[in-house]
């Protein structure tokens, strides 16, 4: 893992829970379904480690609600959806992220570099 990957990993680690809550806002989803939703938005977080421990923590902290239901022709799956506490945590987390991002942008905008996609 290069220095760039290491920094990306550290940056993501602090907001992965927000990302998971954000994709749950689209509707209840099971574990792998959330991974696919994030990938569709250009965010592959699986490389940073599995999402299951993170989902477990969200569940323990009552930020998500779970229910077991049948999936499309497959076995019953555990569906996660945001709880009212999770919604509040997401809103607060997004505010914190935006404030931090704006402050960091204010510092880094002084540096002129060519941004590669």
């Amino acid at each position, binding site marked *: 893992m290069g220095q760039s990957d290491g920094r990306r990993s550290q940056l993501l680690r602090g907001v992965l829970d927000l990302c998971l809550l954000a994709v749950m806002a689209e509707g209840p989803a099971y574990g*792998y379904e959330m991974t696919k939703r994030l990938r569709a938005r250009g965010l592959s977080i*699986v490389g940073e480690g599995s999402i299951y*421990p993170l989902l477990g923590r969200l569940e323990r902290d009552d930020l998500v609600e779970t229910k077991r239901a049948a999936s499309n022709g497959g076995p019953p*799956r555990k569906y996660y959806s945001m709880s009212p506490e999770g919604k509040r945590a997401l809103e607060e987390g997004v505010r914190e992220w935006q404030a931090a991002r704006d402050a960091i942008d204010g510092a880094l905008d002084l540096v002129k570099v060519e941004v590669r996609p």
Partner: protein
Amino acid sequence: MNEFIGECRKEWQRLGVPDPVANEMAADLTADIDEAEAEGGSAEDVLGNSLFDPQHFAASWAEARGVTSTPSTPSTPSTAPRRSLSRRQIAAAALAALAVVLVMGALVLGIGHQSASVAMSVRKILGPGSVHWFGAGPATPPARVFVSGPSFAVGHGPGPAIVAVGLLLAGVVVLGLAVFYWAPWARRHSK
């Protein structure tokens, strides 16, 4: 993949995760991996680099859910702060403390009983007034005086001695319980 799930199950069992919870986690994992493989992907698409460390993955997941009953010993050094004492450790410490109190009580009773016996022996031999009691109040006369042979041993009778022996035995039993509770934890952490 069955091997990965099997390793996870072993770890959950070691951590004391209840069977229904372990079954649920294993079923969710299996279903997700099956779906990824059916779509042409692999287990790595679901698990990322956790695929190569099932023990750590299983422990992290169970601990995050708060379903473990024993502390884990991760295979790799962790930077996480040390966990607080488990209930088992607290029980062992409490039992050890109780054992100490019981043994101390037995010793105090035993020594007190012996001192009273000696003092009463001296008073018997030297006559009244030869023994002076120090303390908050007058000494309680012995409940029963007995004489055994030419040494004129005098005591309070068997009451306090029996209590002292009882306390001592109780202390030993409680100490044994403390060791019983502490030993499995200590064994795991000495590996």
